[in-house]
Structure formats: C-alpha cells, structure tokens
C-alpha cells in the first residue's frame, strides 16, 4: 500500500473543515432550543396579542369593495368584523379569514358605494384589534384593458419620453460649442443628476414608510442603491478594459446616464399610476406643461458626455428611449399593481444608478480639467444644474 504524500501547502476543504464550520451552527441550534424551552428566564408572554394588518390595495367595482390585506404581525390573525362608515357589513375572506404571518387575503364586501364619496373601513381581528384604511375618493378602480393601457402609455409618453427626446434635439446645436462650454454642460448634468438623486432617495425613504415593517423598507433602499452603484461601476470598469477607447467610454457613460434617468422616470411612472388608482386627481393641465419643461433637462444630461463625438441617430434614439420609456412601464405597474415594495426597490435602484453616473461624469470632468484647469466652470456648472431643477420646480409648484 503506497502512501500518497500529503500536500501541506494547498489548503483543501476537508471533512474536518466542514465539521469545524458546523460546530458553531450546532451550538446555535442548541442555544435556540434551550431558549425556546425555558424562555431564557424572561417572561415573554405578551398580555395583549401583537397583531398587524396592512391593507395593501383596494379595488372598487360596482357594489363591491375588495381589500387586499397582508398580515405583517408576528403571528397568524383572524379577521372577525368589517365596519364601513359606521356600519357593520357582512363580508367574505378569500382564501381564509385566518391569515398566516406575512400571508395575504382578499376581503370582499358587497357595498353600494357612491362615486366621489369618502369611505373609512375598519377591520377588527378576533382579538378586537382594529385596523383601518381610508378610501378618500371612491371611484371604479381601473383594470387592465386596452384603453386604460393606452391611457397609461400616453401619460408615460408625455412625462417621460417626449421631454427626454426634446432635450436630445439640442444635440446638433450644442455640438458647435467650445470645450470649456461642453465641460460646463457636463458639470451641469452632474448637478442635475445630484438633484435628481437626492429627490429619488427622499422619495424612496418616504415610500419606505408604507412598506410593511417586516419587509424593512430602509434595508431595501440600502440593498437596491448600493448594489446598483457597485454593479454599474463594475460594468463601466469592464468596458474600459475591453475597448479602452475614449469615445466608447463616453458613449457608455451616456448610456448609463440614460439608464439612471430611466430608473428615476420608472419611479415617477409608478407614482403617477398609483396616484391614479387611489383617486388623487387634481386638474391642472399647465402642470403637465411645466413638467415637460423640467424634464427636458434629463435629455440634455444624456447627450452631454457625447457632444464631441458623432454617435449615430439610432444610438441617440435608443438612449432617449432608455431614459424616457420606463415612465410608461412605471405607470403600468403603478396603475395595475401598486406596490410600495416595488416602488421602494425601483427608487433605490434609481438612486444607486444616478449617483454612480455622477461618479462617472466626475471622472470625465477630471480628465478635462487635467488638460486645462477650470475650477469655476465646474463649480458654476454643477450649481447651475441643481438650481435649474430647483427653479423650474419652484415655478411649477
């Protein structure tokens, strides 16, 4: 029997390593078992059951109200009574009035609601804990169909695609500008994006408050934004390694700006769609006009890095679509399946993407300023970008 010589230099994953890795886990299981069986010496018996029920969505149809609820409490709960505007109403729950932790159910009530009126719904669990939802303005909930689909498409087109393309149409004129002006424009783009980035983040934080606590809205923001930032960074570094061409690099940055703005517009589309569903309708066509004026700067931002190059029209159009069209997709999602969870995720991705793009533009500007120092151009550019959005926002509001 020949003995093979052991190879002490190579670290190998042996059975022994496996056991060593396993020991803390086994001990952990033991500790948990001990805690569960003894209560750990703490009296953890809650005097009142802790329950939480989120009404995630409601659908109003002729003489019907459907509430989509989720049990976000620590234990299962049972829906026992439904009161609408101070009247106890018969109801059915599908699949079951008893909802497991994080489970969902549909509460159905035959209720002759009136268009345009407000309703307050209180759901009592079997432990007599009330949960409420307000229907501020009752109206037939739009459902997926060709016509509403077209309506949401149109609104996305107006708030996303058209302004972005209008901005891109500046391309021929801006090409005539000198190097210093182009750097200024790049800096202004960075300023725009910084403003949008903060705006998106703030919105993400706001919506995160609506996410059931079990889903940790703030954690979602951290995951979505940091992961997006690092992923885009990795992609951009890889691209530089592969091609190395300065022109391609600038085009890649333009594309990334488009993606970042695209996510921002997706978030906006979600908000519009969701707002439409809950009836937050206020008239003001001039606001749409103001909105187009403000978002035209997004198109400008996309083309700024590639002004000194000659990208094909097809490429420009593609970037315009990437930047603007997500508003349409957002409106669809928000309109048909409004979900704070998705909204937070998209807004977080948008935040990460936008700040990564700012970082990339910063690198481009650094290359320019390395050739010719122009600190005031950069300062005034960034400030201009932010102030433009702030002022247009001011005019609209």
């Amino acid at each position, binding site marked *: 029997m020949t003995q093979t010589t052991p190879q002490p230099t190579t670290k190998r994953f042996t059975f022994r390593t496996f056991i060593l890795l396993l020991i803390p886990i086994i001990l952990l299981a033991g500790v948990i078992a001990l805690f569960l069986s003894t209560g750990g010496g703490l009296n953890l018996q809650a005097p009142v059951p802790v329950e939480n029920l989120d009404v995630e969505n409601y659908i109003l149809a002729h003489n*019907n109200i459907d509430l989509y609820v989720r049990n976000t409490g620590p234990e299962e709960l049972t829906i*026992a009574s439904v*009161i609408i505007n*101070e009247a106890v109403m018969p109801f059915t729950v599908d699949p079951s009035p008893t909802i497991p932790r994080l489970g969902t159910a549909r509460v159905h009530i035959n209720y002759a609601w009136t268009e345009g009126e407000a309703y307050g719904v209180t759901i009592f669990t079997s432990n*007599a804990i009330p949960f409420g939802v307000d229907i501020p303005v009752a109206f037939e909930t739009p459902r997926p169909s060709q016509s509403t689909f077209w309506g949401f498409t149109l609104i996305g087109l*107006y708030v996303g695609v058209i302004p972005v393309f209008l901005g891109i149409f500046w391309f021929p004129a801006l090409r005539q500008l000198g190097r210093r002006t182009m750097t200024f424009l790049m800096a202004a783009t960075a300023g725009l994006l910084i403003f949008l980035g903060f*705006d998106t983040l703030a919105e993400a934080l706001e919506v995160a408050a609506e996410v059931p606590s079990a889903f940790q809205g703030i954690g979602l923001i951290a995951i979505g934004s940091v992961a997006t930032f690092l992923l885009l960074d990795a992609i951009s570094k890889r691209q530089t390694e592969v091609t190395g061409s300065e022109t391609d690099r600038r085009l890649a940055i333009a594309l990334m700006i488009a993606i970042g703005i695209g996510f921002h517009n997706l978030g906006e589309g979600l908000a519009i769609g969701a707002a439409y569903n809950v009836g937050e309708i206020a*008239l003001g066509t001039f606001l749409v006009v103001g909105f187009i004026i403000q978002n035209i700067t997004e198109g400008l931002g996309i083309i700024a890095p590639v002004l000194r190059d000659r990208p094909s029209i097809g490429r420009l159009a593609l970037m315009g679509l990437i930047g603007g069209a997500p508003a349409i997709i957002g409106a669809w999602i928000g309109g048909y399946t409004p979900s704070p969870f998705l909204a937070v995720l998209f807004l977080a991705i948008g935040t990460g993407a936008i700040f990564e793009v700012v970082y990339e533009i910063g690198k481009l500007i650094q290359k320019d300023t390395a050739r010719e120092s122009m600190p005031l151009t950069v300062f005034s550019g960034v400030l201009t970008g932010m102030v433009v959005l702030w002022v247009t926002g001011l005019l609209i509001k």
Partner: protein
Amino acid sequence: MKPLSRRDFLKVGGLAFITTAGATALSQNTKKEEQGHTHESTSHVMQQGDHGDLPGTVGEVDHEANGFNPTDILTDFDYGEVSTLPNGQTLREYNIISFNKNVEVVPGIEFPAWTYNGRIPGPTIRATEGDRIRIHFSNGSNHPHSMHFHGFHPGEMDGVPGTGPGGLVEPGGAFTYEFDAEPFGLHLYHCHVFPLARHIAKGLYGAFIVDPKEGRPPVDREMVMVMNGIDIDFDDANDFYAVNGIPFHYQNHPIQIHVGEKIRIYLVNILEFDLINSFHLHANFFNYYPTGTSLIPSEFTDTIIQGQAQRGILEFSYKYPGMYMFHAHVTEFAELGWNGMFEVMP
C-alpha cells in the same frame, strides 16, 4: 397638508393629463368591466339585489358559551326568592355575583366583559312597590365592584365608594344591599366603582323594575330591553351597539308577536361614551311613560330619545302583520348593531 414634493407634482400633473386623455377610453372600459363582473359573481347579485348587502353580522355568536341568549333575556324577569317578613312585608332575596367573562359579542370577537351573574345585561330585578329587597352581592372578579340602585334607599345602601362597606366590595368580598322597593317605575342598577365609565361599559348593569302596588293595566306580553354599547378596543368609544348585549340579535332573530297583541317594553339606556340613544318603532306609535313613574303616558309617538341612564315604558300593538324594524334613530347606532325586527303574525 404637507408641502408638495416634486413627485407629488408629477402625480398631479400626470393625472391631469391622464384624466383628459383617457376619460373617454375609461368610461367605455367601465361598462365592459361591469358586465364582466356581474357575470362572475351571480350568487352575490342574487342575494344583494343591486344595492349591496344590508349592514349586519353573518353567523351566530355562541350563546351557550356566553351563558345567555338575548331572546331569553327579553322575557326573563327575576322576582327573587319570595318570603314574608314578620311585619307582613314581602321580602325578595337575590343572589348576585360579579365575575369576569369573555362574551362573544360579534361572531369571532370575544369581549372581556365584567358581568353580574355572567350575563349582559345583568338579571332584570323585579319587585312590587313597598317590597323589601335583599341583594346578596359577592364579588368573584379580580376588581372591586359594587351595586348602585336607582331609587329610594339609605346612603349606606347606595353602592358608591365612601358610603360604607357596600360602596366598594373587594375581590372575594360580599355585601348585602337591603332597602324597600320605591318609587314604582322603571329603574336600573350598575356598578359605581371608579373609573365609572369603564366599570359600566364592561357590562355591569341591569334593569330594576318596581311595579305599582295595584299593578299596571294588563298586557299580553312584557319585554325588557337594555340598550348598551360595546367598546371592544377600549378607546372610550363604542364600536358596536346592541339591545340586551348582542349586536344585531333581534335583526337576526326577529321577535315574534301577533296582530292586536298588547306589548309593553321596559326600555333602559345604559350606553356609555355616547350622550344619547333612541328608540324608533316602524309603522306604529306607542304610549310612552318616562321612567315609568306615572300610569298616564306623557306622549304618543314613534320615536323617543334617552340620555345616559334614562329609561321609560312603551306600550303598543300592531295593526297589520308583517316585518317591522325597531332601532335607534341615531341611525349610525342602528348600522353598528342596535337594530331589530318585530315579526308580526296574523
């Protein structure tokens, strides 16, 4: 209202657009949806007609587990254990114990009630003017309680903290309230330990009827109705309303009477947190005797209002057969449980 954010603006602006652009498309869509919906839920449509369901509860509370049924309470008058005192006076003795009890008030929801003899309302104590009343009260709950009667009695029998041992009976303690039943009329009793509103709202109350010596004119049927509220989540506001404890009970189980039958109702309002309660009888009028202290009605009406602890006697009979509602004409109470039906049979 919070200031508008940029996204708020987007919503508003976007909506303005979608409203105008999609209005026609949407209205067409609505019609389609309605058709589609009607098709998929025919069973509901058959039950509800075209106007949704009526307010009410589905299913039945567990009366057996509750230990009482409002249908029985209606005609359950407790005359006590009767004997005659050496001086010839009639003595009526009652045993009443207070204890905590979970009462299923709405199907699926238990109310952690405090009760007299395990029921809401407590026993309807009935005596004749001048009788000697002796209430052997014992406290089987884990809170101090008392029994405070409306009517004439000595101060130490008032059941209010500070008036002696009967003012506050500790858990495990006992006290005998003793007084003459007077004046004749419809009264009530309730716990008077503080916080008062909570002790009453939890269920410690009942009707106390003192008949006049010569009796009231005979009727075919007598009923007691104690109007109460249920603050199920203890926020000092009622979530449900009822007569004799269980919301919607007489809507789900109509009270059966006959055309021409003379009906007398002893109506007591023990509602907490809301200032007034009321009683409205459909398709009929009644003679009303406020507090029952006179044999001459004060009013011939179909609706009366009672403040907290007010009470009165109603007398009526039905002319036509049919189903007739009676309910609080504080209508939001009606839809939260204070609604019932008389089924008048020929």
